[in-house]
């Protein structure tokens, strides 16, 4: 597998391999692309069919001659160019071709010439009309009389004729136009800013706390041969088997007793003590040659000095790993915050919580929700990309050992 082969067959295999990898990469990345594009869209632009990746904006026109101000620019079926709606609620007849009833021809009612012939469409007898389309006469029947809009062409001369059309057939002209205000809007109007700072605070506190307790505990387990150590370690090891769901009710009860519900402290203190982090640090400390520590002890350093001045600087990679894992955990955690931050006070919200509420079943402002989601996802992805080394090395050993 390590040998680079040549020849047409090998090339074909390689092309197929890359094609597969790229396909999977597209499957992975496409939702994120959709997210970014949606976060830059206008809300009306999201619910259009077919879906589009391009954030678009409706073009408008201001023409005092026609009395238009920021009027939407439309495109009409069967007509080239841009139009503006100058008058609504004009009477309009919806004609359909005899030979192809799917084709709709919308005209002022007086432009159809009634004949005395009839035809049968879907079991109904319909009178045949003659209308002029592109200079030729077409036989049509009148499906209904309704009201439509009077559309003024924008590109032609002032005397070019306005067109009557059903309003639902007129599509607003859209051009590329990202809406960056979504981000500032979600941060200020939806109170996501406060959630963001709360999340940052909780994340930093959890990461720092985890590092402190894990370094101390991991060092004790790895390097101090105290009585009862192995039994305690087994206890820690066993604790990994207990899933969080078992803990959630009693922990909630405990927070209730402490008066910590609906407070950020409930998201921090209980998660500062981590068996996993303790293992990670213990494993790393075990890997540092014992003599280095002994040298420090002989040099007269106390255990604490040895840990701080010798072991911790050497354990930087492990600490970085622990920090990245702690960051991801704290930043993305949802279940516990959902349980404990339960008053609905937006000032105690976390990003995940606020987003879940915003993007919930009764959500409006999908564009803002997506802007929030992009804001929430960017930091962990960036952290991952920068700290990849630690992930790839340690994901494998994260579970056990």
């Amino acid at each position: 597998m390590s040998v680079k082969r040549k020849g047409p067959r090998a090339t074909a295999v390689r092309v197929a391999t890359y094609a597969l990898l790229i396909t999977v990469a597209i499957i992975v990345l496409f939702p994120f692309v959709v997210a970014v594009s949606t976060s830059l869209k206008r809300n009306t632009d999201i619910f259009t069919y077919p879906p589009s990746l391009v954030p678009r904006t409706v073009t408008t026109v201001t023409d005092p001659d026609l009395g238009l101000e920021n009027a939407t620019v439309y495109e009409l079926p069967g007509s080239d160019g841009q139009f503006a709606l100058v008058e609504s609620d004009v009477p309009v007849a919806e004609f359909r071709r005899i030979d192809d009833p799917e084709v709709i021809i919308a005209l002022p009612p007086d432009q159809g010439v009634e004949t005395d012939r009839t035809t049968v469409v879907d079991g109904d007898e319909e009178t045949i009309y003659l209308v002029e389309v592109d200079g030729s006469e077409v036989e049509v029947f009148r499906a209904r009389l309704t009201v439509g809009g009077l559309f003024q062409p924008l590109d032609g001369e002032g005397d070019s004729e306005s067109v009557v059309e059903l309003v639902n057939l007129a599509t607003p002209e859209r051009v590329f136009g990202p809406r960056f205000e979504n981000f500032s809007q979600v941060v200020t109007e939806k109170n996501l800013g406060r959630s963001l700072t709360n999340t940052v605070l909780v994340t930093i506190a959890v990461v720092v706390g985890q590092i402190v307790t894990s370094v101390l505990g991991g060092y004790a387990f790895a390097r101090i041969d105290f009585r009862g150590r192995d039994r305690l370690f087994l206890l820690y090891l066993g604790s990994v088997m207990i899933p969080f769901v078992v803990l959630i009710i009693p922990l909630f009860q405990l927070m209730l007793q402490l008066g910590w519900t609906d407070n950020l402290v409930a998201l921090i203190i209980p998660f500062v003590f981590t068996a996993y982090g303790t293992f990670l640090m213990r494993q790393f400390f075990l890997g540092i040659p014992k003599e280095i520590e002994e040298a420090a002890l002989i040099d007269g350093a106390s255990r604490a000095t040895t840990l701080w001045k010798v072991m911790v600087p050497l354990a930087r990679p492990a600490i970085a790993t622990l920090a990245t894992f702690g960051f991801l955990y704290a930043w993305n955690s949802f279940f516990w915050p959902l349980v404990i931050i339960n008053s609905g006070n937006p000032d105690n919200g976390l990003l995940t919580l606020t987003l879940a509420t915003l993007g919930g079943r009764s959500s409006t402002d999908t564009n803002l929700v997506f802007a929030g989601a992009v804001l929430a996802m960017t930091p962990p992805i960036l952290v991952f990309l920068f700290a990849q080394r630690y992930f790839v090395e340690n994901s494998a050993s994260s579970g056990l050992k």
Partner: protein
Amino acid sequence: MVDSISTEPAPVALDAEQPNSGPAQGLRLVVGWHVAGAAASVAMMLLANRSGDEELPATIGVFLRVFAAASFAAHVAAAVGVSQRRRWGRTVSLVVSYLVFVVAAVAAVHQLGGFTAIGSLGEGLSKAVVPFIVVAVGLLWVLVAGQIGASRPAAPGPRQLRRAGWVVTGIGSAWFVVAADPTGMLSAFFERIVQPVTIATLVLALVAFAATRFMWNREIGRIFGTTASVERTLTGLAFLSPNLLGFLFFFAGPVLFSLVVSFYDWKTTGTGRSFIGIDNYVEALSLDFASASAPGAGVEVLKANYQVLMHLDWFGQNWVIGARDVTFWLSLRNIVVFLALAVPLSVLPALGLSSILASQLRGMKIFRAVYFIPSVAGVIGVAIIWGQLFQSTVGWINYLIKRAGDLLPFVDAPDQGQAWLSSNSTALLAMVIVFAWMSFGFNTVLYLAGHQAIPKELYEAAEIDGARAWKIFRRITVPQLRNTTFYVLITTSILALQLFDIVWILSTPQPGGPDNATMTPVIALYNEAFKDNNRGYASALAWVLFAIIFVFTFAQFRRDREGATGGIA
């Protein structure tokens, strides 16, 4: 012995602690402290006996009494041990004083509102975002400068750079304090610190700390004839203690408490908190099978309190299966289906992709990174995205299926967009897709680690034998990755069994919907615990779920012990 000691000059550390007194004097004070502690424990015991606090359930009352008794015994032992200069006396005294110090200090911080003040910190932070960023940049600056300096320690440049970083951090911090405006917090602090309870706990903490410091001293240790082994045990426990105490208080204790609660009819509303033995478990797990003469028979054929779970047609015989907690059983059924679909879907692609990524082709690291992204992006954001993708009218999934139907004759695209999330038949499948999409990248990386453990010689030998790529994959890669596969399967299953967040966001019209089609055990548990406030019953559900998960954990544990490390070294 004591006399000979007291004639020696007091060590320096003692001077600071106990001015104008030798170790003997200090030890007398320590004995006094323990006697006082024992007396206080008795008082606490009496208090616990007297108080008929409605809010305190019996278990906590018992706990308090046990705690007081233990505290009394420990203080007495410490007082005796110290006054008789027993070796264990110092150890007991140290442990007791230290624990009292920790408890009192935590209580003092609690009294001062130090913990809940963290919530206000969020407010301060939101008021001072810009200075906070300055502080962060400053710290990052210092870190980077330190890294540069580490490789070239002699160069003066990095050191100056580092100093500049600290300056930036300092300015940022000062600005932060001003912007965050801690005056409100400070005034609250001063308001609380004058309360008698706060002062009492603070004093207790200080006394216990002083006693700990004094007894910790090596010179004192020598008076008690300490050995290196004792010193090491004390040091080890001291280092572990922050971790261990937190672990016991926030993990081990609650877990035990949860087990206790699961045997209670424990509702937060009303006063009923009675011990009901295993009734919660019976309620959760009871099933009833009844044969019915006609299909579609209902509750009438089942025992009382049972609801219809499902109908079965077994060789022409109609069966009705009933359960007392239908929702929970449905959630179990769902999670089994979910496991059966989601686990293969997130493991098999990982196996295949990892085999490609393990080759030395160019760009593999990039693909690896890309595949990993979904598992770090955060489940809430991801679920929100997929909610939009699954949208029935304008969602991308339906659109792409439609386009595929236009292009490919064999894809039969429905005219009407599929309502993925609101249709009973597809809602769970949608969850499967999101779960698999999120987790396969992580599994791929796990597999990659397994690949590294496969000896390259195996591949070389197979190539010399003329084996083709597929054969090599089948006959070498897959068997060699057996342990990794086992590990990946187990961890993915454990994760899948606790499915919550994805469903919480995506399911409609309520979590677990439609019609419980996506109800998972954890959502059922959440509803019981926090919607219906059935904490006792929900705890029982948690332990049932734990038992199921434990089957998987135990399998992995057994395998690890057999020496197969799962290629995860």
